């Protein structure tokens, strides 16, 4: 029932994209409520009083917060379809480790690439490529991080593909030159409807991020 599952959402947030992908993978109907972070709804403040952030999944009236925690929750509640985490504890730990790596490194470094200039930007570009190369090492020759199946680590990382045009334009570089395997993996993920429907157009994201950048520069 669609009214059982509500997502406090934001079209441009990579963290919200993770949840949209997971819901789509499982074929779960839900209501998306778009939030305006400059004017947070009373529902958001009630459902996530600690961080006041999206995404928040509201299932049968109860909130689940933090994107990767939401994805694991979705995987556990709707466990009969398209499992996102592997079954063996060792593989699960590995999937969590790499999703944690994405969380620790990709958002903050990627943001420096599109939001800054000069030396700071150059250092960020180098670090980003370094992180992507490490991820390529983990991917190896597998189609997905999870192996043959699209899974938890893939869900955690693929939303940042929506930032590629913005990062490449601002940083004046081509990610495919240094990270061909990663780009091939991203394109493979984009062939999945759950992903292509959850990620906004890269140019639209570029325009949005440039708007954010202006605001950041003004501060």
């Amino acid at each position: 029932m669609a009214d059982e599952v509500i997502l406090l959402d934001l079209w441009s947030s990579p963290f919200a994209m993770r949840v949209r992908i997971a819901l789509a993978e499982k074929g779960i109907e839900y209501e998306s409520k778009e939030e305006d972070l400059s004017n947070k709804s009373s529902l958001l403040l009630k459902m996530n009083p600690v961080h006041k952030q999206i995404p928040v999944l509201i299932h049968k009236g109860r909130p689940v917060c933090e994107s990767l925690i939401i994805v694991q929750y979705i995987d556990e509640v709707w466990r009969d379809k398209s499992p996102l985490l592997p079954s063996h504890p060792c593989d699960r730990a590995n999937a969590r480790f790499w999703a944690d790596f994405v969380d620790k490194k990709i958002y903050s470094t990627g943001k420096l690439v599109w939001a800054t200039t000069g030396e700071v930007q150059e250092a960020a570009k180098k670090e980003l490529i370094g992180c992507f190369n490490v991820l390529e090492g983990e991917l190896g020759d597998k189609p997905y991080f999870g192996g043959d199946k699209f899974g938890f680590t893939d869900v955690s990382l693929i939303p940042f593909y929506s930032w590629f045009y913005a990062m490449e334009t601002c940083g004046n570089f081509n990610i495919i030159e240094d990270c061909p395997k990663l780009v091939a993996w991203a394109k493979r993920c984009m062939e999945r409807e759950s992903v292509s429907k959850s990620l906004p157009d890269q140019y639209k994201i570029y325009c949005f991020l440039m708007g954010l950048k202006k605001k950041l520069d003004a501060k």
Partner: protein
Amino acid sequence: MAEVKLLATWPSPFYYRVVWALKSKGIAYEFIEEDLANKSPLLLQYNPVHKKIPVLIHGGKPICESMIILEYIEEIWPKNSLLPNDPYEKAVARFWIKFADDKSPEIWRVFRSVGEEQEKAAKDSLEMLKTIEEHALGEKKFFGGDKIGMVGIAFGQLAQWLQVIEDVTGVKLLEASEFPRLQRWINNFKQVPVINENLPDYDQMFAFFKGRRQMLLASK
């Protein structure tokens, strides 16, 4: 049963998280002391990405990052469970575990800094303690229940390391009158046998961190 080894350093609070989890489940393990100033080939082999401790090595396979290690331990040895079974309660527990991981470093910023930076770190630490007091701890004895679990273990550094930081820096953060629930939790937590029997010696910790702080200040 496959061999369990734990690569770690004393007195890292992250090391103790894993010790508490293993001991609460009665799992025997071999402790391998690591020297972080001179990282061993073993550490570099088993945690090439972060080169950090703790690393759990089970049957020759490494698991890194303390809370990921705890989820692994919980899945391999489900006896004396540390996480709720219900997916929603589990999600709530994981929220607080993540909060502990993301915010606990604030108290270490107090330890490492001076002046304005230390004041800011102290302010952020107090915000963190306030959030725990108001939102995480109900009236139950431990986070979410009557026995300790993964959330309590995740916040474990507040039970001993925080006091060491306060005593070494002279910056008081946790006033019992302002944080009655948190103080009560600390008292209860430290009395649980598996915690009580596996806490680093306070005086040794004080001496160790005092020395560290002196070195930090000298280098500024």
